[in-house]
């Protein structure tokens, strides 16, 4: 059962990820991204992380990709682009290097933690499933708002700074035009 769910979800994730980079139409690429995010949500459910699955769908599929699509529609760039033209020459070799680097890092971390994932006894310190449905959410809340509350608040300040900065940058252009 677990294997079947994993294989199906992994297939969703991979097909979606390939779609993001191979589809020439931006809207189709964004929809493939949604497929990937749903696959990840299914994997969360299979791991009994129901809360993360729901948040994955609400935040990523429901808000972020909708904003991508919104921008694509509003700017009218929903046409296939000719990818042979290269506006920024260093981009592709750099992307290859970064991509290989990420694959290397992930592979290294998996190899390093091989014992904990597969070979170990399989029991973690904190039980993920305790029969009580709310325990999952409670544990996340305790670590986010208890142990890591400073990091959480700093992240929220960072987001507010980013939002205010964006508003300021877009408005300054307008008022500059008016003064000149």
């Amino acid at each position, binding site marked *: 059962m677990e294997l079947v769910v994993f294989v199906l979800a992994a297939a969703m994730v991979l097909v979606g990820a390939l779609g993001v980079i191979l589809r020439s139409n931006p809207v189709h690429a964004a929809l493939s991204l949604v497929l990937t995010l749903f696959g990840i949500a299914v994997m969360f459910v*299979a791991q009994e992380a*129901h809360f993360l699955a*729901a948040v994955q769908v609400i935040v990523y599929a*429901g808000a972020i990709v*909708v904003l991508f699509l919104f921008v694509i529609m*509003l700017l009218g760039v929903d046409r296939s682009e000719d990818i042979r033209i290269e506006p920024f020459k260093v981009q592709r070799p750099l992307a290859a290097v970064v991509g290989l680097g990420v694959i290397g890092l992930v592979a290294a971390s998996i190899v390093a933690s091989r014992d904990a994932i597969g070979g170990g006894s399989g029991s973690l310190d904190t039980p993920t499933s305790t029969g009580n449905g*709310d325990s*999952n959410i409670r544990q996340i809340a305790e670590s986010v708002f208890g142990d890591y509350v400073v990091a959480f608040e700093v992240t929220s300040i960072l987001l507010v700074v980013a939002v205010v900065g964006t508003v300021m940058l877009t408005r300054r252009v307008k008022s500059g035009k008016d003064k000149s």
Partner: protein
Amino acid sequence: MNTALLSIDPVADGDLLWTPLLIIILKVVAIFAIGLLVTMFMVWFERKAIAGLQNRIGPNKAGPWGLLQTLADGIKLFFKEDLIPDRADRFVFKLAPYLAFVPAFLVWSVIPLGGDFSNGKDGLVSWFGHTTRVQLADPPVGILLFMALSSVAVYGIMLAGWSSGSKYPLLGSVRASAQMVSYEAALGLSIATVLLLAGTLSTSGIVANQDGFANWHVVSTGVVPFVIFLLAATAEMNRPPFDLVEAEQELVGGFNTEYSSIRFGLFFLAEFMNTVTMSGIIVTLFWGGPQGLFDIPVIPGAIEGTIWFIAKVLVFLYVYVWFRATLPRYRYDQLMDLGWKILIPASLGWFMLMAVLRLARDEDWNRAVVAVAAAAVIVLCAVLISVAMKVSRANREREGAMF
């Protein structure tokens, strides 16, 4: 693993035998059938009630009181020609109606439709010697599932407009996606106020928390989150007075202009089913769900819950029809002003107020002092926000913007 995935229903605990499996299948089929039937009568009810409010007769030919009018319309839609525009994106064009329709249906699964919640009972009922709920699934993240589904429903409308390859549907869907994404914030914040009191995300837990009228969340959260939720839900469903998505005077028919035949039927069905399920969610969150005000004599407890639930849902269905018949449509900038400048700050402020009161109760602080101080802070914030809005309006006018 088997039981873990299915642990959303108490009937599936332990070894999965034939009877529990049959009960689950029976519930799925029943909810599917009830969902379709209720939606069919909702369409009839809306047409009939609006006709009454506008001094007309309304549907009266098919069946008694025109009850079968929707069925006749549905059959007609099935036999009409299915057109696909030349410039449409064929795959997405065919996919979009299902993206609108399936989430609308799935919301049914988390609404508690009945059960005995009185005197601290948990709403569990016994069928054929197995305990279960009058609810298809009771996942621990219940209400978040509803949020997730409503955010998936945005895709249906958005992609329908884009894939039609024509300008009016595109305008309609751009309006729809902006509107639905911005009102989702107010919706979520007013749900958060309820969750603060309920202490759980599961829908049956939220209902069980509302034992007695004083504990109904509409009373115990102080009405404001309920009003915000009602407004935001109306906008989220694109119903009047927030139906700019299909403003027929400006956009022909909105996002579904290019759709015909049963594909249009699916959008239509999804829209009306959303009205019913949203009323169910409002009743679950704020009005005690299947919890009754008093005992109805003779009828057993489990059925009594269903009767109360249906009665409450009917009230809200009528409220939505009434909105449609009474209120003129909002302008787009008014809609965005209401969402971002009034509903979101108000729901956030009220959420903080409820959190402070909850903290005061838990820590045993002086309630009166806390309430006065919190009210002062909220008034101060409201003044600051309104001053900031005035300043920005003055700035925009100086720059010569139109609005």
